[in-house]
């Protein structure tokens, strides 16, 4: 019952090696390869968004299960909790974007006199951009921290008052998250193509976040399980995780297609401006995005038997995790870096650098407490759970 994850020297060294090697590779490419400034900044924004999305998706996962009083996930509850630890780090990394605003965002350049951008000046100006950024992060960090504190109090005191608070806080978080996740995606991604807009964009980004978070939870569970931890994780829990991955991948495809179909049918120049460069210059990546994020999880997980095999589900989760990185790449890169955007050593090494830091934070959190929340009121339900 009592499981402790040991963050061994082996793990630390491997992670340190990944971080050091990828940092070195990134620096070499930046110094020797002479990539454009906008490509470097867009890379930082892309990975900030991707890994922040995994963290926020994990927080959403916890909140939505608490408000619906679900119990099946209690066995793996520590994993999403650990993943939320990256949000404060993402805050610092996002603030760094201040120095690269002009490289990424066309509207942030002082010399721009575009009537469309002028009309959006009330929202798109640098001071307000950072005020909003601080507000989003303050809300996320504080609410996630309070949720965690409250949950810990429930474990130590077993006072059911904290269980009620848990639901209330989850509801508060969900309302705040629902608004800010849309607004932040307009700010950080949609405003790259400042003249373009799409009303479904916020939800589209939100689903990308949630699917990548689910993929990461599954991969983490697979890693821990294959190292002999999480002995209580049964195929029923894996089945439910896989159902979520399967259904939200379909939902992602639904939103992707809703956005594409309306813009394709309307054929208005200010709307098609987003899809034309992405479709014509990055045909392969564009097709890969849809194929990998929809067809692979759909056909890979459609049978109920394949949803119960953790190894297989982890393979699919790994593919969709990469797929959603590519999805963000398509949203951010062609707009921000223009001609110089590609998937090269710089992109791969930056992503590895971020994932090294991310996994380090997750492992450090996991090693600080029991892997199973022993006193959660829902633990019994999770242990008895049959899918």
């Amino acid at each position, binding site marked *: 019952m009592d499981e402790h994850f040991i963050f061994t020297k082996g793990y630390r060294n491997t992670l340190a090696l990944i971080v050091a090697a990828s940092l070195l590779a990134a620096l070499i490419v930046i110094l020797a390869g002479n990539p454009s400034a906008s490509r470097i900044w867009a890379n930082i924004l892309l990975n900030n968004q991707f890994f922040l999305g995994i963290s926020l998706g994990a927080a959403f996962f916890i909140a939505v299960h608490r408000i619906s009083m679900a119990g099946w996930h209690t066995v793996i509850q520590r994993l999403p909790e650990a993943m939320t630890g990256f949000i404060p780090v993402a805050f610092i990394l996002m603030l760094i974007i201040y120095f690269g605003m002009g490289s990424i965002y066309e509207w942030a350049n002082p010399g721009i006199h575009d009537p469309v951008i002028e009309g959006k000046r009330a929202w798109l100006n640098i001071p307000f951009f950072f005020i909003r950024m601080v507000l989003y992060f303050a809300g996320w960090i504080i609410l996630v921290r309070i949720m965690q504190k409250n949950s810990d109090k429930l474990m130590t005191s077993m006072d059911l008052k904290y269980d009620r608070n848990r639901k209330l806080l989850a509801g508060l978080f969900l309302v705040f998250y629902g608004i800010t996740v849309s607004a932040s995606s307009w700010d950080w991604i949609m405003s790259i193509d400042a003249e373009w807009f799409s009303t479904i964009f916020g939800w589209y980004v939100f689903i990308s976040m949630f699917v990548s978070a689910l993929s990461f939870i599954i991969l983490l569970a697979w890693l821990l399980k294959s190292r002999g931890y999480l002995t209580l994780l049964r195929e029923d829990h894996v089945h439910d995780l896989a159902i979520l991955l399967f259904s939200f991948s379909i939902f992602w495809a639904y939103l992707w*297609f809703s956005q*594409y*179909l309306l813009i*394709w*049918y309307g*054929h208005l120049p200010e709307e098609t401006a987003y899809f034309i460069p992405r479709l014509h210059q990055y045909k392969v990546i564009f097709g890969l995005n849809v194929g990998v994020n929809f067809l692979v999880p759909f056909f890979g997980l*459609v049978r*109920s038997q394949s949803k119960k095999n953790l190894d297989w589900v982890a393979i699919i989760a790994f593919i969709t995790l990469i797929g959603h990185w590519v999805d963000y790449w398509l949203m951010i890169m062609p707009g921000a870096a223009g001609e110089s955007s590609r998937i090269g050593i710089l992109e791969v090494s930056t992503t590895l650098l971020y994932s090294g830091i991310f996994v380090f934070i997750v492992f450090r959190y996991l090693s600080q407490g029991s892997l199973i929340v022993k006193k959660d009121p829902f633990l019994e339900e999770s242990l008895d759970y049959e899918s």
Partner: protein
Amino acid sequence: MSNHDYIVVYFDDEVPMKQALVRLTEKKERIIDVRTPFPVHGVDRILGMKKTRIPIGGFILGLLGAVLIFVFMSWCFVVSYPLIIGGKPYFAAPSFIPNTFEITVLFAGVSMAFAFLIRSKLKPDIRYRPLDEKITDNMFVILVDVNGGNTTAEKIREILSDIKPVEIRESEVKNNG
């Protein structure tokens, strides 16, 4: 099925019922049916029932529906009655996708519903025949086959002596059909 003699075992909770099921299957008693007021998880596993093949039918019929409607719409808009709509080409594939999706869901859903009705031999004039007069909505009931007289209520009572079912009785069920 012809007229059958059953031994009816009543429980007032699902937990002893599942224990009894495990015990009876270990003793190789033939269990005809289990009746519960609400779906009880795990009963199908204890009884070793085969997995339903209805989802496979749904998947195949869904694919069939997708292909049929896509081909049909393509034929309509390209061959039979070509119209230019909104400046799009005749073969405007993205605009066929919503309908393809809907028909896929329709085919999969309706075919699964009908497959279920056919497999369970349900048709409009079917009446509910209680297998035992005392099976009501609040009891968990196991029906055990008498196995040609080898299994008696006494024997079952002995097997389940420590689980304490509410009642065990032999029952002849009149088959009206």
